[in-house]
């Protein structure tokens, strides 16, 4: 058992801890702020999801009127994407990337703090529409000309625009920070091809954010000008073009989808090897596939616009088919990692396996949607709602929970309770499939998305009911998770430095790490620098602590190649 301190608060003189958190520039505290903030928004948007599902459980309008319903799904989608999934993964990135790089902090700590604090501000602005006559209600995609001042006169839409622009700016600053950190602050010996795969996915993600988000900002500004200063970008009545908005939105929006999924893939690619006790199968192919996805993601945006009649279908269909190839490679690499491993089915592993099996379904339905004739049938139906939740929820959010269980010990020094974690996983997994699998069939039989009511004769009632039950199961599954977090913080099992026998650098320091992260760094000869230290030559031996200690040598840039590679 570790004898390290659990609380890093050694030096807290009389400064209040509140002020401390509000003014911190430590990447670890900022990371935790990101995560906590994101989960608060997750609960808010989840509450809206329950409202939506309650309304749809049976035909007829019961709880909401049409307008409230429209606001609910708009806020649900916007908040889930921009204030939950993206920032929560950025939060884990913030905490973990410098540690995995062996760096003392991010490149620009103060900008890091600023880009965090813009988030709650932007999120609250988006939500504040509710206080001023109604939140935005045009869907998270905000298609023109429905968002023009003619059709959406309320100030809620302006607040949505401003909030999104703020959140976008925050994530651009965060992206600059990540890229600079990764390029400039790697520990001696850590070449690009020795970076943990999570860092690679964050690097590609940050690049996508850097290049895609400014385009959305430009679009939001154009929309704001249209609404408030009589501009005519998107309004056909005065010579504009509503399809232009869709091009701009999806030029950003499709990379955004990968912004949301790539870090989750990175998380899973960290966890699967550790809990299979093998290296990631095909590290190089995996890096290559990640970069390929990043590049291709800029050439597929119009597959969201097949039914507009305004895009060249074969090209975008082909590019979309292409992007499935690197994704398929990744899937096979994950399976190869499991193959002949020794699987330890702890909660992080369960959520990672959940990720594999659910993301697969989202991927398959995605490839189906790449076929224009099929898309003509299911576009804008519940089939798409099913698809996007299998990717965002079954993919990213399962990844988020995997990351939470995996890195919680590092962040707090305590390990989440395993039985409670397993209860959480199973209710979550079953509820998720109950909620979203039936939506495939609803969409195929023609139920459009974004409707608060449907005809009792349409034959959609039973499946909608099932879906609502599933949604409530998901909500219930969060209860054991919260209990687990609170109980563990109060009185959890101490984790030690490396409870999972992880092989990346974050496990080479105390849990939680000291403010400067590392006292000493081990030598780095592969993407698993700790493997040699913890596992010896091919089998787990009980090593006396002091032997381990001996291995931790101070490395200078010059002696990277001092140790022959084949030891590792």
């Amino acid at each position, binding site marked *: 058992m570790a004898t390290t301190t659990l609380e890093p608060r050694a030096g807290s003189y009389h400064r209040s801890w509140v002020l401390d958190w509000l003014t911190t520039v430590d990447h670890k505290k900022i990371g935790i702020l990101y995560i906590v903030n994101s989960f608060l928004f997750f609960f808010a948007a989840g509450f809206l999801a329950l409202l939506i599902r309650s309304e749809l459980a049976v035909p007829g309008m019961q709880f909401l009127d049409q307008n409230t319903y429209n606001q609910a799904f708009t806020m649900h989608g916007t908040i889930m994407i921009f204030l939950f999934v993206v920032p929560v993964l950025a939060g884990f990135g913030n905490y973990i990337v410098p540690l995995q790089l062996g760096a003392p902090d991010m490149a620009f700590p103060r900008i890091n703090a600023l880009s965090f604090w813009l988030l709650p501000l932007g999120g609250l602005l988006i939500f504040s529409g509710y206080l001023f006559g109604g939140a935005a209600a045009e869907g998270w995609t905000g298609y023109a000309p429905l968002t023009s001042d003619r059709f959406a006169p309320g100030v809620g839409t302006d607040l949505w625009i401003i909030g999104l622009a703020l959140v976008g700016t925050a994530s651009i600053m965060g992206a600059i920070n990540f890229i600079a950190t990764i390029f400039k602050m790697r520990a001696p010996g850590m070449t690009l091809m020795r970076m943990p795969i999570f860092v690679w996915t964050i690097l590609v993600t940050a690049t996508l954010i850097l290049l895609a988000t400014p385009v959305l900002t430009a679009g939001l500004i154009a929309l704001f000008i249209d609404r408030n200063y009589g501009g005519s970008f998107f309004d056909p009545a005065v010579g504009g073009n509503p399809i232009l908005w869709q091009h701009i939105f999806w030029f950003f929006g499709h990379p955004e989808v990968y912004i949301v999924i790539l870090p989750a893939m990175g998380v899973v690619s960290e966890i699967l090897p550790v809990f299979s006790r093998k290296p990631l199968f*095909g590290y190089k192919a995996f890096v290559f596939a990640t970069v390929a996805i990043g590049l291709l993601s800029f050439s597929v945006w119009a597959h969201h616009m097949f039914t507009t009649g305004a895009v060249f279908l074969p090209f975008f269909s*082909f590019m979309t088919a292409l992007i499935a190839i690197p994704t*398929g490679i990744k899937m096979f690499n994950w399976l190869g990692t499991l193959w002949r491993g020794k699987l330890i089915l702890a909660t992080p592993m369960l959520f990672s396996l959940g990720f594999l099996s659910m993301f697969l379904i989202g991927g398959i339905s995605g490839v189906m949607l790449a076929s224009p004739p099929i898309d003509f049938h299911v576009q804008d139906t519940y089939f798409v709602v099913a698809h996007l939740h299998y990717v965002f929820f079954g993919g990213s959010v399962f990844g988020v929970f995997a990351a939470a269980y995996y890195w919680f010990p590092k962040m707090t020094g305590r390990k989440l309770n395993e039985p409670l974690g397993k209860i959480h996983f199973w209710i979550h997994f079953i509820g998720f499939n109950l909620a979203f699998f039936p939506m495939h069939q609803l969409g195929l039989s023609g139920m459009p998305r974004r409707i608060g009511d449907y005809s009792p004769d349409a034959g959609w009632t039973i499946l909608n009911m099932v879906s609502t039950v599933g949604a409530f199961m998901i909500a219930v599954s969060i209860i054991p998770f919260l209990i687990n977090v609170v109980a563990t913080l109060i009185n959890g099992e101490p984790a030690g430095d490396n409870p999972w026998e992880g092989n990346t650098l974050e496990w080479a320091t105390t849990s939680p790490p000291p403010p400067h992260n590392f006292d000493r760094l081990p030598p780095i000869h592969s993407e698993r620098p700790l493997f040699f230290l913890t596992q010896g030559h091919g089998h787990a031996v009980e090593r006396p602590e002091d032997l381990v200690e001996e291995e931790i040598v101070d490395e200078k840039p010059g002696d990277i190649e001092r140790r022959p590679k084949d030891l590792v």
Partner: protein
Amino acid sequence: MQPTAPRNRLRKMLRVGIPVLLTVLLAGCLLPPDPKTEAGRDVFNLYLVVLALAAIVFIGVEGFILYAVFRYRRKPGDDVLPEQLHGNNKVEVVWTLIPTVIVLVLFVVSIMTLNEVEARSENPGVTIEVQGFQWSWNFVYEDGPTIGPRGNEPPELAVPVGEPVRLILTSDNVIHAFYVPQFLLKRDMVPVNENGTPNDIEFVVSEAGTYAGQCAEFCGTDHAGMVFTVNAMPRADYDAYIAAIEDGETPPTGGGDCETTIDISANNTRFDIDEFEVPADTAFCIAFENLEDVPHNVAILSGSEALFEGSFLNEAGSIIYEVPALPAGDYTFVCQAHIQAMAGTVTVTE
């Protein structure tokens, strides 16, 4: 090795049971509605191909995950590391090729079907401008009437079966989308500026009947209420329908409005019923379904005089006949192509 025996059995059960269950699940549902247009049939067939590919990938990968979970699970106390396999170039080439082949096949068949869906005839049977507005529809017939919402009733788009119908999709407000699930087709109705051309679609309805349609692009507050029906009927009925509207009469209403509907089907040159009863002096409907590719219809005779003659279904299909009110009495109903073999009695009661 005692404790492994039941485990093995469980494993075997799962190994067989789960793929079977999933296949049933995938094949039993997850289908679009039975298509009612010719191109819709092509899309449906394409969908079947794609679904089959999807099912193979799904079962393969999920199966492997399950297999791995059971087969490679670490035994308690097993501290020996597995072989530290870093990769294998040959395998990686193979599994780059697998998805490549799958998506290329998918791409090629998709484009072939796309050409069918996007085909345009030189002279469509009818051309109708569909105007979307917040939150209903106007159907503007070329050289003909305009049909809009009728009170609280959703508007009805009347089209002839068996010939190409061209729809010009316009909007002068927000974007809507024309969607009829049973046609497996939708297209956005984009407001364009002076320089733009509106979208159009074309289809051949293969079967008479009424089909629900709905706006599929979110268009504001009452988007959910923006519904319509398509009423597809034989050319003669269609002409009468349009003529009635031009004369300012209410057109013959669709089957949905009948107080009494009699279901009759035909198969093996037989009706499934040989008698039915309806109230006197009230119009009623016959929902007729032809189950074989042999021409049948339903006619109502008084002696040898036909009081009602339904149009023929020349192949399998269904139609709703609207039968005018009959005085009380006994009549016969027949298929006029098979008067001997297909006949029954109609009792009209006070």
